[in-house]
């Protein structure tokens, strides 16, 4: 009878369904399948898919690789902390370190060129949040995540940390230039 009483028809799975329900179930199911197809289809036709290329890494391994690229491609330094600005060749690899509480180094890309950006954290989880583009990627310690990026606009972009990482979290900023 009512939802708080035992059903009067004992075989509830034989209840007829109303046409409203039947119609809605069909519409909803179609919509669910459309959404599923969108997600799969975007992997084939879309231009924004998160790479899954990942390696286990350690602080030492990753720092050494990052340092090598910095040594080779630094074009200038910025701020009184002398943060290197790295300008990798198109198609090349570049390493970004997330640590308490900065992103290192500063990176310079060229518009329309593609780069392999390697991300990891030296300590806690961090969040790579590229602003104002608004691309957000989790950065997990122990894992080197290789993301292939193609900037489609030029300007100065900031990397905000958007995973809580302790008392300095809200001051953790980095920078990417696109020429």
């Amino acid at each position: 009878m009512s939802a708080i009483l035992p059903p009067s028809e004992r075989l509830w799975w034989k209840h007829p369904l109303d046409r409203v329900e039947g119609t809605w179930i069909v519409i909803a199911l179609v919509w669910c399948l459309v959404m599923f197809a969108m997600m799969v289809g975007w992997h084939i036709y879309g231009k924004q898919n998160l790479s899954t290329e990942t390696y286990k890494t350690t602080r030492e391994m990753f720092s050494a690789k990052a340092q090598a690229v910095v040594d080779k491609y630094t074009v200038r330094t910025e701020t009184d902390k002398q943060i290197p600005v790295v300008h990798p060749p198109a198609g090349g690899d570049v390493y970004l370190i997330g640590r308490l509480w900065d992103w290192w180094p500063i990176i310079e890309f060229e518009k329309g060129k593609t780069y392999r950006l390697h991300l990891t954290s030296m300590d806690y989880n961090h969040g790579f949040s590229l602003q104002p583009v608004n691309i957000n990627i989790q950065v997990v310690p122990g894992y080197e995540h290789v993301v292939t990026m193609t900037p489609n606009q030029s300007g100065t972009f900031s990397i905000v940390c958007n995973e809580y990482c302790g008392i300095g979290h809200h001051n953790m900023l980095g920078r990417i230039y696109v020429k």
Partner: protein
Amino acid sequence: MADITTYRTCPRSGLQFEANAEKLMLANAVVAVVFLLIGGILAIGVVLTRWPSVHWLQADDFYMVLTAHGIDMLIFWIIFFEVAVLYFCSSTLLRCRLATPKVAWLAFALMLIGAVTNNIAVFQGSSSVMMTSYVPMMATPAFYLGLILFAVGALIACFVFFGTLVVAKRDKTYQGSVPLVTFGAITAAIIAVFTIASGAIILIPTFLMSIGIIKEVDALVYRTIWWAFGHSSQQINVSAHIAIWYAAAAIAFGAKPMSERVSRGAFLLYILFLQLASAHHLLADPGLSTGWKVVNTSYFMYFAVLASMIHGLTIPGAIEVAQRAKGYNNGLFEWLRKAPWGNPTFSGVLIALIGFGFLGGISGVMMGTEQLNMIIHNTIYVPGHFHATVVIGTTLSFMALTYFLIPVLFKREMINPGLARLQPYLFGLSMYFFVLVMMGAGTLGVPRRHWDMSFSGAAMAYEWPGAAYLMMGLVGIAGIAAIVGGAIYIYITVGSLLWGKRLDDGAFSAKPTPFPLTPASTALHGTGSAGFAAPGTFVLALVFLTAFVLYYFINWKYLSQVWGLS
């Protein structure tokens, strides 16, 4: 049956309460409300700090208060209340005694000790790790120990619930199948067992790591298993509050489910796909394969979303059918206009249902789409979304149920019914606005769990667009309005309990009175009217679908404009 107990038939509702179950429901519900009070006070600190021009607390206090707010609200308030709901849906709705009341008190004690231990750890200040406590950031051992004790208690409570189902079956207090609402509660309890097991798998090693027995818990493994726990616990809430929606429709309107088969089938879909969807918290993570993400985040082709869309139709549909049977048959919406809008149990549930669907549901599916997740992950859009699900959906439904329970379970006349009539509107509608502006700020990239959006003192600088500041200011204003709404709920509940006029108990008996036998097949509902039985609801459902489709594709458009990623 060694336990001597009595059964009370409430003269106001006809429900039958067993003495042990009644005391346990009361204890769990009262402790739940105390945690809501604590969490609500903490919300003042959170919201006044995130309001940029107020920026009230210091950074360390803010992170501590936010950790406590998340845990006290999401875990302690909700789960204590859910235990009361489980006992109600078993012992009261099935008219039987509660199995093993002593064990149920043990469960209650463990949960309470765990919750207090965890809170003490957080307020000592060195466990500001947020409710997710991602390793390798470590809290003190007491933080994890408190959570583990609480989880063990909650697990025991689930088994008391299952035991009570067995008692009812054995004592034959009902014929045939359990009521739909109990069926929903069973769904919630099954999911809870799976959830708590996942929680144990990850929290126990982390506890051992905090006391130095285990050297390391892998950061990504932690995230993956933690979310098997963190996500499925939200599925418990959804099952529980949907069961309450069906109950409220039955109580306020005498509405019967349009089709038991459809509604129960939809609950079964929850059970089948419950272990999925934890991936929607991990879509922006390294190391997990695309195939797993796509299948898991969509609950295998969105079958659990389908289930929610079904409940979203069948509950208002059942109300519409009941109202039309009472003669409110004009046009598409007379049934809705003539609904008891001044009854806070009804208005609370309806505001919860609409807000959960339109705000929580649509945003949740959008965020849970693998690629779209990249444009909102860890922004304040995320708390915007889940305040629509867990506050507008679950919390407001629990509030609505409380208004029904004050005379029935607490046996008190409600103090200040005028204020109670207003409360769901104030709390619910200010929360609608609150989540909308949070989502707005998140779309502009504003991060969650962030003390200072102006980055003052940072080595570099970034200036958010003015609209982001405006939205966060509005978050502050709407948040305060919602907190006032929450305070009114607590005032009415606690006030009625303390000062409300005592109402009579009703008749006591030593044995349960079983259900009167209902004649088989009292009219197959829905088949009576040619065409649609609930045309108004169907139109509303189409409005919902339109909003859903538009919003979904707008976000794809937005995504297609960002940098190429592969």
